[in-house]
């Protein structure tokens, strides 16, 4: 891919990120206009769920996953919106670094200080995004648990994603969470690649000063 097309592709990704930011703000404004900004929902999964046969018992519809919602938590909604906007900003910064990196590589400037710095920055931004995502999830789950009574309907208990004291006899509702494994893995690859580029730069400097 030529330098021009590489830049165009990353520019396109930056436009998508900007649209995501606008989308988040529009969604928040819409919720505010409808008086729903104080509502916060979070995906959850129930241990006790109903199963409906589909067709001639060929398949089943499982009413297993849903969301738990708490009201009167405008502060949490605002905090989550701020976190979402920061995450979008981090993504834009990653794409901006990637834009410069790909442009330099396509232009033949591969093993340079600027590229090593860009890769390290991408790694740091990915780690920051992962930590932010984990923090928002923990904060949301904690706030929801604080707002709810200990047992729901007298016989159900709601649990955070990580809990060790759950009663197997109790039909639990567990809040869902997927750890940011992919961003962490990508951050690790970015740091390793930065190290490889550093070695490449030293090798280039050595070979350039040999006559």
């Amino acid at each position, binding site marked *: 891919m030529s330098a021009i097309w590489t830049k165009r592709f990353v520019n396109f990704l930056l436009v998508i990120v900007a649209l995501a930011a606008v989308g988040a703000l529009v969604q928040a404004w819409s919720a505010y206009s409808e008086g729903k900004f104080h509502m916060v929902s979070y995906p959850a999964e129930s241990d006790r769920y109903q199963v409906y046969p589909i067709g001639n018992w060929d398949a089943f519809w499982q009413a297993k996953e849903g969301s738990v919602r708490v009201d009167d938590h405008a502060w949490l909604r605002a905090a989550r919106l701020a976190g979402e906007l920061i995450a979008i900003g981090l993504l834009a910064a990653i794409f901006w670094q990637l834009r410069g990196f790909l442009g330099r590589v396509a232009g033949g400037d591969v093993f340079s200080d600027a590229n090593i710095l860009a890769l390290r920055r991408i790694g740091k931004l990915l780690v920051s995004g992962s930590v932010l995502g984990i923090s928002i999830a923990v904060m949301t789950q904690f706030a929801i648990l604080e707002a709810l009574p200990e047992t729901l309907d007298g016989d159900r208990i709601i649990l955070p994603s990580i809990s060790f004291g759950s009663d197997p006899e109790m039909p639990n509702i567990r809040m869902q969470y997927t750890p940011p494994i992919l961003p962490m893995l990508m951050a690790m690859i970015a740091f390793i690649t930065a190290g490889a580029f550093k070695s490449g730069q030293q090798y280039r400097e050595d070979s350039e000063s*040999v*006559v």
Partner: protein
Amino acid sequence: MAIITNLDVVMAQRKVSLKELAERVGISATNLSLLKTGKVNGVRYRTLNAICRELDCQPGDIFEYRPDD
């Protein structure tokens, strides 16, 4: 640097100019000048072989080791 380059001495003894030697060895005059002033990190065997051939000398005539004080 403990390695001293005596290329300028050998060139003066053989009465060979920098430009002429660079052409005969097959490297640029800039690179030969850098080698002459000791501003390089290494010399390829191919380059050293060509210099010794053109100047009719041994590698030891061009390079000298002087321990640092």
